[in-house]
């Protein structure tokens, strides 16, 4: 007996029988249970197979698009970096805008001054002397002796002018002295810088009213500075009956260490032209 041939015959017979039964059931409209049975057996397998195929397909697709993804990743990284830089720039612009707004408000309150905004580009390299370097020079109409201010008060004056940059002697330098007066009592004196960035008002006559919190401003005497520029506020009074004069410690509202933008008053001509700090 040829078993292989018989097996084929048997299979053929079974399939034929199944087909015949199916056709009969279909004809009589009784295919529902068959479909149910088939569904129960096939659907889970089909589902699992579909997931498998989809997963493999996606992986294959991902592999084929790896280069593209890499490029996209780099592009996104670039975008993130650019956005971070932009954020920093915007933050910086916001701070700068705030400072400029402050200066503008000051300018509006003092329309009599022709003020030129300048950026601070350096400080003196030594801790003994206090100078600033600003980015405006002779080509911007800057001249020696011009007062330099910020929205918070007097900063100093120009002592050296180059074509594109100038040096500013700060109010707090030991060689700086400014004729000053107290806003409340109108008493006059001289504000001098001290090492350690402090200010002291000297030569205030005895008997003049002087108290903590008094506002100190330029008196205009001597012609080196315009009148009524704010210098600072009295923080301590030193009064001794045996001395001829009183003294006061003055605190400026200007943060000389962190100055970024200052204004040069261009329409003020100092009377004393020789303003070499050493010779004063």
């Amino acid at each position, binding site marked *: 007996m040829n078993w292989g041939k018989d097996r084929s015959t048997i299979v053929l017979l079974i399939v034929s029988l199944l087909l015949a039964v199916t056709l009969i059931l279909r004809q009589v409209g009784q295919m529902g249970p068959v479909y149910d049975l088939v569904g129960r057996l096939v659907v889970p397998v089909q589902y699992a197979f579909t997931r498998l195929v989809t997963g493999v397909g996606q992986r294959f697709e991902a592999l084929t698009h790896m280069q593209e993804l890499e490029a996209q990743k780099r592009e996104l990284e670039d975008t993130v970096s650019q956005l971070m830089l932009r954020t920093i720039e915007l933050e910086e612009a916001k701070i700068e805008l705030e400072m400029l707004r402050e200066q503008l408000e000051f300018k509006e309150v003092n329309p009599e001054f022709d003020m030129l905004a300048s950026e601070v*580009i*350096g*400080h*003196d*390299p*030594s*801790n*003994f*002397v206090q*100078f600033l*370097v600003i980015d405006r020079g002779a080509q911007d109409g800057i001249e020696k002796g011009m007062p330099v201010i910020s929205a918070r008060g007097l900063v100093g004056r120009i*002592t*050296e002018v180059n074509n594109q940059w100038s*040096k*500013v*002697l700060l109010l707090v*330098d*030991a*060689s700086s002295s400014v004729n000053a007066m107290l806003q409340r009592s109108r008493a006059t004196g001289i504000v001098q810088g*001290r*090492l*350690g*960035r402090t200010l002291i008002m000297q030569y205030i006559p005895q008997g003049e009213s002087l108290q903590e919190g008094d506002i100190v401003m330029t008196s205009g005497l001597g012609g080196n500075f315009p009148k009524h520029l704010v210098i600072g506020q009295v923080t301590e009074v030193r009064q001794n009956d045996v001395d001829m004069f009183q003294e006061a410690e003055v605190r400026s509202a200007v943060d000389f*260490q*962190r100055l970024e933008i200052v204004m040069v008053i261009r329409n003020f001509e100092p009377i004393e032209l020789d303003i070499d*700090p*050493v*010779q004063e």
Partner: protein
Amino acid sequence: MLQTCLLPRYAVEGIAPNLVVLLVAAWAILYGSREGALVALLSGFLLDLLSGAPFGLLTLSLLGAGLVCGLEEIRQVQSALLFPVVVLGASLVHDGLYLLLLRLSGWPISLMDGLLLVLLPTSLANSLLALLFAPLVHRWRVAVQVEEATP
């Protein structure tokens, strides 16, 4: 640039460390007085351009520091702590000379204030900063000495 733009912004009580003194001191103990003086002249000249004080004072005071730091007796000392100690000395020499020169040029600065409020705090700040760079300078120094000893 660091010395004039960045460090003054982070000064404590008006005291910022002087990186140029560190550079001059390091160069002098590595290569001797002559080389130290050369670096002092170049860097001092640049600093003088940016300073408002009379021209040349920073160059002269740095030159003094460079010459002192490069002395053979100092260079013979083999210690990783040599650099901060030398920087302390260099700062005292540099700031001391600068203060004297300022006074001589007529700058109205009190010697006592200068000493207490600037010279000593600056020297201390420089030495502390030098401590951070001490291992690097020491390694560099050993490499230079090996190179010099090689025939």
